[in-house]
């Protein structure tokens, strides 16, 4: 896993002969080359005259992107130049820039990504434009590799590590006392989020927080006869799905959690001291009696006791 993280970093910082040029000048050159369309005489064979010594370059042929028999693959179309742009005069000394990928490429992320999105224009990426990662200038190559037999992020052991390189708060949360099982990759980030953008907040895969939760917790969907209003409103009113210092991923502990909304004329208003062992602070706290906090379908379950 560590190797995967560092390989992404090392790819993004690999040196090129045009490193000493201003990024604006590099992009201007690439724009001009792309418009002129001076492609090589022999396609990939031209490129490999120099680059076949590189194991990283040759690894493209281990995966689908390098298989000319896969119809949608770049190797079945403009080969290396499908992604890296027209050769132009690059083969005359290697100083003329080509399109490169990664966080440290002089090519802006949006321009890099436009290459990938040429082919990966599907329902999973319909909301890519303007999504969180697009806005934050995250290049596809920041998370994905194509010069490999298998993209490392497709391995669930790597996915969480790659996501939490940037999403550090979530990394801290998933190590807390209660959390969805992301730490040991029983679950992965993409079980709930679409990293390529969605129509919901936080790039959730479903249309609301609750619908996202119901996709695994269908038993809580109902509709039930007696609903608990904050549960119906938003599961995140009480839970932090990434993890919490408290049990059950709760944002706070009962009885105080319940008392944030319940202060009726009776036992829910009382101050409960810490040095007392009673049914309000011990066992399941308020849920000793009101155990059906996610709603009840019992005819007499209005108080969420049945």
């Amino acid at each position, binding site marked *: 896993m560590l190797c995967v993280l560092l390989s992404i970093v090392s790819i993004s910082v690999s040196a090129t002969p045009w490193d000493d040029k201003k990024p604006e000048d590099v992009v201007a050159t690439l724009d001009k080359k792309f418009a002129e369309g001076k492609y090589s005489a022999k396609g990939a064979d031209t490129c490999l005259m120099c680059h076949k010594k590189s194991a990283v370059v040759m690894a493209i042929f281990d995966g689908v992107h390098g298989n000319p028999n*896969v119809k949608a693959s770049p190797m079945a179309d403009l080969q290396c130049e499908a992604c890296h742009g027209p050769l132009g005069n690059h083969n005359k000394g290697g100083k003329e820039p080509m399109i490169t990928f990664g966080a440290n490429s002089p090519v802006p992320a949006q321009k890099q990504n436009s290459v990938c999105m040429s082919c990966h224009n599907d329902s999973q990426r319909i909301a890519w434009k303007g999504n969180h990662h697009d*806005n934050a200038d995250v290049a596809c190559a920041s998370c994905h590799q194509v010069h490999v037999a298998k993209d490392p992020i497709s391995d669930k052991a790597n996915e969480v590590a790659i996501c939490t390189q940037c999403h550090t708060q979530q990394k801290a949360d998933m190590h*807390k006392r209660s959390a969805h099982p992301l730490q040991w990759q029983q679950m992965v980030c993409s079980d709930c989020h679409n990293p390529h953008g969605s129509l919901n907040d936080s790039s959730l895969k479903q249309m609301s927080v609750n619908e996202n939760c119901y996709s695994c917790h269908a038993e809580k969907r109902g509709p039930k*006869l007696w609903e608990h209003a904050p549960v119906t409103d938003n599961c995140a009113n009480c839970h932090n799905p990434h993890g919490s210092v408290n049990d059950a991923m709760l944002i706070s502990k009962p009885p105080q959690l319940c008392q944030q909304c319940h202060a009726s*004329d009776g036992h829910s208003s009382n101050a409960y001291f810490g040095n007392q062992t009673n049914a309000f602070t011990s*066992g399941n706290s308020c849920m000793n009696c009101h155990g059906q906090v996610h709603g009840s379908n019992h005819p007499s379950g209005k108080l969420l006791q049945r």
Partner: protein
Amino acid sequence: MPTAKLSHPSACFSLTLLAWVISGVLSQAHAEGYELQQANRSGIKTEAWSCKQCQSKSGHSGDVSATLAYNDGEDSRFGNRTGTDNDGFVGAVGADMVYKTQSGYQTQLIADKLGFDAGSAKLTTGRPGNYQINLGYRGLANYNHNQLKSPYTSSQDKMLLPDNWITGGTTQSMPMLQSSLVGQDLSIQRDRFMIGGYYAGKISPEGDNNSHYKASLNYQHEDRSGAKKTSANILTNSVMLAQPIDDSTDEIDARVYFNGTGWQAGINSQVSQYKNDHQAMQWQSAYTPTFGAAYLGQNAVDPDSKAYRVAAEASGGANGQNVLMHAGFSRMTQDDTFIPATINGPSPVLPADTLDGQVDIIEMILKYSGRITQDLSVQASYNYQDRDNKTAKLDFPQIITDSINQGSAQNSLYDKRTKKLELKGKYRFTSAAYAEAGYSRNENDYTELDRQSVDESGVFAKLSYRYSPAWSAWLKGEALERDGSEYDPVTTTQSQSNPWLRKSYLADRKRQKVTLHTDYQTDIGLSLGASLHSVDDDFHHTQVGLTQVSYLGYDVSAQYALSDDLHFSAFVNQDWRDSDQAGSNHFSTPDWYSTAEEKSTLIGAGFSYQNLFDNHLDIGLDYSYSDGQSDTEVVYGITSPYGDFYARKHNINAYAKYKFADSMSLRVDWLFEKYQDANWQNQGTNWDTLPNVLSFGDMSHDYNAHYLGLTLSYQM
């Protein structure tokens, strides 16, 4: 802060504004990128593009493995780490194999820990990009506790006490309690089985080369089994139970999408059915009835339910701009037969045999993103969602805890309509610096809640700067203010709510968020990252309820590649979350206050060293320590601190993989976990510590557990 309502007629204004923004920039937006479809192919002579040196591999590749391990399962919680709670020797198989043909056909088998509860496997076959069929299995295991005791055993829909049970007025006066205790296992196993596939092709074989379609159909069946912690009560006497879980969910997802140069459109549909094998949870009371003859209680269980959804969406654009439209409809229904209002004596007649519940949700989204100039891009989106609970409102008899008839009550039907407007702009000063700013307005209309509407407006700004190719940083600040209609406590509750209370999820709130992040990468293989984040919530109009939440956190991480083979990493995360709330013992203004101070620390370090001993040995080690604690205090005349609440964990994950033949390797994995937690809710308690709560007692964990695995791999 602007508070213009999005509701009609001003909603029309907002939409008009959105339409104006979109139309205003249509003719000005700038093209971007190197899309394949925009490639200038006029000079290409592909006749000579034979790709003689392309070395696309065919045949088998990958590896298969078999694992034999010793797993310490004395405390099942360790199983969350290893994927199995078996105590002793366990076995699993794994695979990461692919078979390719020169024609582009590909079959892939991936299996991970297959044999453990949390194992998985997936078989995929087809031609990538053309058609594919997949079969899959995924196990998810959650182990909560296996060292608890209770006198209850489960039998189908019943939680039973021993035949010779003698009831008591309190837990201390139950003579058979100690001798009747049996082990309880709180764990949940999910077994998911998937089958699906897709077919993709050109819309017209003779026409536009860039127009395609893709149709997919996927089915998933999930079985859940195990038990969860719950409670049940008769009047003020409660018992803690390990409620059995046996249910299943079936889901179908079907979608057809069409795309071409700069556009995409499609429809998708999902059907979900939840079935619970249990119809109710009936339980014997361990207590002598306070009055009457309430020896039994019966709780409802999660009812069978169905949901379906259909949505259509389309996106399109050119010259650096894009418009996305989406419309969807969902329906959730539930018509499980009601259980009786009480099982102690005759149940009153119910107004219906089933709820016949129905909730409809309509959603519509319009989103625009565009690049106005080379340096300026804008976004605008409008999101409408309407949840309509169409269930009938009826009078249901209320036999409280199978004991007391308290008349009848009507069910509440919570509707919610959300309208959300977002406007953002991003300006790039140079290739190394940009600023982003935006405005959002989120309006929610409710029924049957203490507020009929809750609205939130917010602004944010972000500045990102790359000082050098090695060093970059960004700073983001956000301010939001939530308010709404007059707070008018509902009168349908059992007892009246304190008029000074403002429920936390409906209360006025001012929120401020700040995040600072920086990255540094050297050309000697060292990369550093650091973040600082804070969130402050001020419930400025709340006297009783949650009044303040402050969150502050930071993290620092470092990764260092000393060589291609030797890598090091380390990280530290810490955060603090403090919350204040107020209450009133006298149904008036606040007279007691509580604070909860949470602190969490995560520290980790690791290394990996590959290709030792002439490419024969890989080794690695990761260590992490996490410590989360919480201090709660209530002040009511005197200050009363609560007891211990913490969870501390040390993890070591070490491995060594030795390649002893060209295609054979042996891997040793050692996992170690030292875990300890405490919770003042049950710390030091016993089954009969509370007279009116028959609990599981102390639920803390304290263990050192090891996993030692040997994995033999064959590389094809």
